[in-house]
């Protein structure tokens, strides 16, 4: 299948890419990993007149730990994050990177591209929503930083203006006695999850000092389960509190019936994933090493 013809531009810097977007206008799109954009172009759902390729820009793929944060260059591939011992310091990041689609897609897809696309079923926005994350954006007027909580506005809609692009994602390393887990349920490796849950928490002894719960694929954006968080915060993490948190999360999911399942099914699934993710996050916060992989039907 051939996409509609377009003019190809190879940017040599992120600044040049932004300038090209400004110069070429609304018909211009950025090409990062292309693992969502190309399928859309082949189906002719996306028909950009110009593509600005970011893949030849040096120095845009990196994972660096600095002053208590881990910084990811926007073109860092999921597979690079999956293999990174630095990224593994925040286990929920490894869960996410290692579970996206399949090996081939992870070798191409990028963290910046995934965030900028803001697909309601994308994995990164759900996971990063449970951490302290700053998204560095570059536009014609220079760089500015947007907090992750302000970055995704709606389905396929972010804080980025047309001429803006993501240059870096920085994630604050959680304090001691923290743990997180990301679980996604998929019908097969290459497809988007049916539902997913991300939980990041910090313990003070047996008490849950702080917690963030987010669900993916069950709304137009990732959904924060604030009442579910309240059911855990300042309480011991016993079975009753965990069940209450999962119930509260389930009730704020806004799933839609589609080929992946009915709305009722997805709601139940999201609640079950939240419960399991809390349990794994808790074990990790206590120092246990727990392997997680996305679940297949």
């Amino acid at each position, binding site marked *: 299948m*051939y996409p509609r013809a377009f003019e*190809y531009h190879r940017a040599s810097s992120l600044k040049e890419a932004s300038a090209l977007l400004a110069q070429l206008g609304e018909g211009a799109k950025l090409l990062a990993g292309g693992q969502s954009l190309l*399928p859309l172009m082949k189906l002719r759902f996306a028909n950009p007149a110009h593509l600005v390729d970011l893949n030849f820009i040096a120095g845009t793929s990196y994972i660096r730990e600095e002053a208590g944060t881990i910084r990811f260059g926007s073109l860092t591939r999921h597979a690079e994050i999956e293999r990174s011992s630095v990224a593994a310091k925040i286990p929920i990041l490894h869960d996410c990177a290692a579970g996206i689609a*399949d*090996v*081939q897609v992870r070798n191409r897809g990028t963290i910046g591209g995934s965030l900028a696309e803001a697909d309601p079923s994308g994995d990164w926005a759900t996971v990063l929503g449970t951490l302290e994350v700053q998204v560095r954006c570059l536009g014609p007027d220079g760089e500015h930083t947007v907090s992750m909580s302000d970055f995704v506005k709606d389905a396929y809609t972010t804080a980025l203006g047309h001429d803006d692009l993501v240059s870096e994602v920085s994630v604050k390393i959680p304090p001691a006695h923290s743990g997180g887990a990301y679980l996604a349920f998929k019908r097969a*490796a290459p497809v988007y999850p049916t539902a997913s849950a991300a939980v990041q928490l910090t313990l003070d002894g047996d008490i849950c000092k702080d917690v963030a719960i987010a669900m993916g694929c069950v709304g137009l954006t990732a959904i924060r389960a604030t009442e579910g968080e309240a059911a855990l915060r300042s309480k011991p993490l016993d079975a009753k509190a965990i069940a209450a948190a999962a119930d509260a999360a389930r009730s704020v999911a806004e799933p839609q019936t589609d080929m992946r399942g009915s709305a009722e099914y997805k709601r139940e699934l999201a609640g079950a994933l939240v419960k399991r993710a809390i349990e794994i996050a808790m074990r990790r916060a206590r120092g246990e090493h727990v392997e997680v992989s996305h679940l297949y039907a």
Partner: protein
Amino acid sequence: MPDPARKIPITVKVNGQPYERETEPRQLLAEFIRESLELTGTHIGCDTTYCGACTVLLNGQAVKSCTMFAVQADGAEITTVEGLEKNGELHPIQKAFADCYGLQCGYCTPGFMMSALQLLSHDSDPSEEQIKKAIAGNTCRCTGYQNIFKAITTAAERMRGSANGD
């Protein structure tokens, strides 16, 4: 106004051999390999980034060549299924697929073998889980995967054996 169909010259090295060709920006890498280079071992299955039949190695990494433009491969080293055989000798992965009946119709096989190649190039003794994960992006509608799994396990054993000088 520049012409979007204007062809762009690119240089690639495929299976060790350099090629200089022109490509229209919208030409997919899979189509480029098959039509411009006439290497038809790389198959196009679903053409939707699902099935993995078009898997090739791009600078050593498995990619779905239906989900990249050829122009993006400019300067890259590509390995296709044709690059497995050396001096008339089948690669251990190819031999193992034949010996273990790791194929029936064979359409998906080049993609599976390239995914297996990326795995075994980085890990000579993969676990069962690692093999399953490595081929999760490849779909086979005939075999039920069990013999493909056996083939990759067998190839790994044989490649370790030959690396030890046995």
